[in-house]
């Protein structure tokens, strides 16, 4: 029982990070119909910037202030990055054939990865423990302080975002633009501005997620964005791409699936496959969802037209 609960806790923590990244994918997809391949790498940049700033500041400032400033620096850098990625690589191609922005997105992703490699090197970097190593015991399962913090912060951010999109003017404008940029334009909404804001929000979330995932594993690496991005995208599809709540549900669910999968795959396959296959679950989830319910858990089933 306690192992089961432990897996659930681990899965939810991991899943809340996936959900934050998935939100970035889903918001951009909802508005532009574009898979922002560079989003995972923006997450990585967030982790790297946070790492560098925290390390640099920790000698001069009290630890919590250094962490807070590091987070702010990561958010700021990622927002600027997200803004310019959209302006330079996606916006000029908005009316080009569908393939074109997908290809520039790959280009951006490669550039970010290799820039990071030049700046921070090829090796795995140790990420400092942001919180004291304490834990709480719930019915035999152990939840560490960092896990609790990740879960708490992620859920708070999601609630705020959900409120923002559902109940504010900006949220209405975002939803209108997602429905039809032309119509939104007729109603006096500046679609370009809304798209920029979407990228800014998505990138800020990515920065937070980057810091969280690095703090959780205690590692940062220039290539970490790739797999994280792939999983987060799978989560977004699982929940129903374009749906904010879908991304959250999909993220949490994928985290739990992975955690249980990695924990039990050995038992299930009689030791044939080990936990080194953890990274393939997201992919199989993606394929199965696309086969069985391509609109995702919360998406409206669309007519399959061709």
């Amino acid at each position, binding site marked *: 029982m306690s192992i089961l609960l432990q897996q659930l806790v681990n899965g939810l923590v991991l899943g809340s990070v996936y959900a934050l990244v998935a939100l970035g994918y889903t918001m951009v997809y909802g508005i532009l*119909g*574009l*898979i922002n*391949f560079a989003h995972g790498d923006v997450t990585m940049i967030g982790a790297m910037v946070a790492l560098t700033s925290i390390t640099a500041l920790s000698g001069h400032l009290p630890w919590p202030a250094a962490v807070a400033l590091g987070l702010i620096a990561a958010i700021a850098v990622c927002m600027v990055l997200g803004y310019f990625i959209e302006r*330079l*690589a996606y916006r*000029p*191609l*908005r*009316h*080009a*054939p*569908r*393939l*074109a*922005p*997908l*290809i*520039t997105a*790959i*280009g*951006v*992703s*490669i*550039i970010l*990865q*290799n*820039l990071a*490699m*030049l700046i921070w090197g090829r090796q795995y970097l140790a990420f400092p423990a942001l919180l004291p190593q304490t834990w709480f015991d719930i019915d035999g399962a152990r939840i560490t302080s960092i896990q609790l913090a990740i879960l708490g912060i992620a859920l708070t951010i999601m609630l705020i975002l959900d409120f923002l999109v559902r109940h504010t003017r900006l949220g209405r404008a975002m939803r209108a633009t997602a429905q039809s940029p032309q119509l939104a334009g007729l109603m006096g909404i500046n679609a370009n501005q809304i798209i920029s804001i979407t990228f800014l929000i998505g990138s800020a979330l990515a920065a937070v997620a980057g810091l969280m995932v690095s703090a959780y594993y205690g590692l940062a690496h220039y290539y970490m964005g*790739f*797999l994280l991005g*792939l999983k987060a*995208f*799978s989560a977004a*599809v699982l929940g129903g791409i374009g749906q904010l709540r879908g991304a959250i549900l999909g993220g949490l669910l994928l985290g739990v699936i992975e955690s249980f999968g990695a924990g039990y795959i050995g038992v299930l396959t009689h*030791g*044939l496959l*080990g936990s*080194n*296959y953890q*990274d*393939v679950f*997201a*992919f199989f989830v*993606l*394929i199965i969802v*696309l*086969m069985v319910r*391509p609109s995702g858990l919360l998406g409206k089933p669309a007519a*399959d*037209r*061709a």
Partner: protein
Amino acid sequence: MGTPASTFSPATVGKGLLLVALPLLLQAGPGAAWVRIVDVALLYSMLAIGLNIVVGFAGLLDLGYIAFYATGAYLYALLDSMQFNLHWPLWATLPLSAALAGLFGLLLGAPTLRLRGDYLAIVTLGFGEIVRIFLNNLDTPFNLTNGPQGISLIDPIHLGNFTFSRPHHFAGLTLTGTQQYYYLFLATIMGMAWLATRLQHSRIGRAWAAIREDELAAAASGIAVRNYKLLAFSLGATCGGFAGALFAGFQGFVSPESFNLMESVMVLCMVVLGGMGNVNGVIFGAILLTVLPEALRMMGDWQLNHFGHIWVDPNDVRMLLFGGALILIMLYRPAGLLPSPAQRREWQKKLP
């Protein structure tokens, strides 16, 4: 179209002679290493031709293409090495490698190709990674792939008693292994390019073009969209598997590291840079992107000679340059460096 090429104009004959003499000239001039570089460029050309069927003809973005290359390479490695002490003849391994890759293409494409095009991109991206993970881990519980060490001591490509890696004498000339591979690869590419061009200018190629242009209108014109996508996808995969088998025999060694995501991206770069949809263009792209890093390497040596220190490591900036090239080409020259006339017209889209 085939007609102008089949007339023997002096230019065609000249080009043909140059192609035949190239490995001899390279060996005599810049050295044997360059023959090998050109061989690798030819292997990439095969991949570019195959991926071009998927991306250029049918307009589907495949980001895990290298997985099919890996499939072909590993099957060849398993059937012709000491791993299981099997030494199957080429006429069996080569078609099997191509067919297995094509089958993987079918299995992957069938569930995903009925969905919007961009899902395919991400699913193939994941697939490429999955294949690598499996290759890395399938040394237990049963040693199939030998894990991260990879499979070495793969038999060189041999037809009957003719082993391509061994020097042979022809009409007073001695050809080295790499030179003989050159001719084998060149012949393969000509065959593949010919097949691809034939398909492009046929009822099938038109159906692909229609799907690329407007899927719904294509369906309303009676084209079974999903089947044609599947055909393009698995034909591309087949080419990848074929090239993979040749690669395994040529290299004598395969490991999961040769098939990472960056390799898929490289082949995509070749297709995009050379000119999507144009067979000659993508071959040009493949050769350019294989030879260019070698030129960059020389710049590293140059720095070392002049400054006594390498300030900018060409290996580090290589991928950076490729990423930048992808973006710039899409923004300013979407038809590629060497587009076909039709393709050039097609991408001349009014941008706001």
